[in-house]
């Protein structure tokens, strides 16, 4: 099928885009990489009246490594962020996650910020933002606000973005010292949205004992589900932590639903297996 007709705007600067969005209100929609929105338009699951194509706004392109992390502009494509050695050095979890997002060809167009706003409950990048405690910067005509990840994802395919707002960038804090990360998932086919996935960050202290461990699960709830499991690690050396027990604690917090792809029971099982893998790999990278 083909998209329903819409009014098209392709502003060259941010101010103009914000004015159009302000006027359009709930009838307006932003077009970034189009890798989630255009399928919805093609299938006529969405039919916005006005589309604001932000692809010509050069000021939204850059991403930069800052003292406290990485700031990624709205037009930074998945593939650019994945390839950046500068980003991988301060926040390796982004590359680990991006390799699981769709296929290389889709990553050439899709944007990191678009993926956050799209807020698919099985998507990797919202989980990364939630796990790291990052934030999204939203601009509207006459104002800017930073929304922390914990408040940004409000439901399946729902974010805190309000009509008239444009997400200009997202901030991912850097990994602390002696900290490792990992992202693992199971999908029907490589590149598909995951049936379930788990990302972990593990920090060890000077004696190489686990001082902090956190995970996030995707595909098992309406929004990314984060859990601090530091207490379960009992400040032991990584090699003697009972990771299976930690994973069970994670499993107990999930409330997966069944769909045509997998039963709830199977998803819960996957979370357990994946949590052990993610935590042990993250711990290995922390040493």
């Amino acid at each position, binding site marked *: 099928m083909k998209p329903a007709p*819409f009014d*098209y705007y392709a502003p060259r600067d941010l101010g103009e885009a914000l004015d159009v969005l302000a006027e359009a209100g709930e009838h307006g929609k932003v077009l970034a990489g189009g890798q989630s929105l255009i*399928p919805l338009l093609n299938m006529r699951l969405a039919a916005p009246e006005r589309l604001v*194509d932000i692809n010509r706004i050069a000021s939204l392109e850059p991403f930069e490594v800052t003292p406290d992390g990485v700031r990624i502009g709205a037009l930074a494509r998945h593939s650019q962020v994945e390839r950046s050695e500068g980003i991988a050095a301060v926040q390796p979890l982004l590359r680990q996650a991006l390799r699981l997002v769709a296929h290389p060809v*889709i990553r050439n167009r899709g944007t990191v910020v678009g993926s956050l706003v799209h807020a698919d409950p099985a998507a990797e990048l919202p989980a990364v933002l939630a796990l790291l405690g990052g934030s999204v910067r939203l601009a509207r005509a006459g104002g800017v606000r930073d929304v922390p990840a914990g408040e940004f994802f409000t439901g399946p395919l729902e974010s805190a973005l309000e009509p008239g707002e444009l997400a200009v960038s997202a901030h991912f804090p850097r990994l602390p010292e002696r900290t490792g990360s990992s992202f693992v998932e199971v999908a029907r086919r490589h*590149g598909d949205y995951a049936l379930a996935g788990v990302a972990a960050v593990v920090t060890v202290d000077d004696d190489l004992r686990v001082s902090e461990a956190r995970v996030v699960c995707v595909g098992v709830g309406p929004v990314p589900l984060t859990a601090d499991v530091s207490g379960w690690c009992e400040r032991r050396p990584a090699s003697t932590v009972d990771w299976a027990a930690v994973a069970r604690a994670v499993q107990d917090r999930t409330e997966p639903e069944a769909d045509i792809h997998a039963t709830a029971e199977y998803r819960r099982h996957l979370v357990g297996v994946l949590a052990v893998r993610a935590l042990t790999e993250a711990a290995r990278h922390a040493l």
Partner: protein
Amino acid sequence: MRYDITLVVNGIVRRVGVPARRLLSDCLRHDLGLTGTHVGCEHGVCGCCTVLLDGEPVRSCLTFAVTVDGRQITTVEGLAGPEGMSPVQRAFAECHGLQCGFCTPGFLCTATALLRQNPTPTDEEVLEGISGNLCRCTGYQNIVKSVHRAAELMAEEEGR
């Protein structure tokens, strides 16, 4: 409303008037008559509509023609050079990398870009590179062989 846009398709400047909702895939096929680009699913899954945008492979079914006004597009029709088929095309013919041929334009464009970026890919890199393209006929084995063979052909031509 119609938008007058300019696309440089396979090196030729083409001017065309399109509504905003015209997908790049339909613009190429219907407006410009370049039916080599195939359309399977129109939601990004099958990969047979893959074309090169400024040299980089993208889904033409997930791109509006108006968005890429002024840019360079290479379709399967543009892969062959003055001396005939490109190394990737010859490799696919030689290794039986196609049967019905429906998926082939997408694989050829994807593989062309892959080998430009990485002239000596490992098996794993080839699999990752073509993972977004579906083929209902070949079982993929010969497609993987074709990509490796294309890498050899390109290296030989470089050496000459």
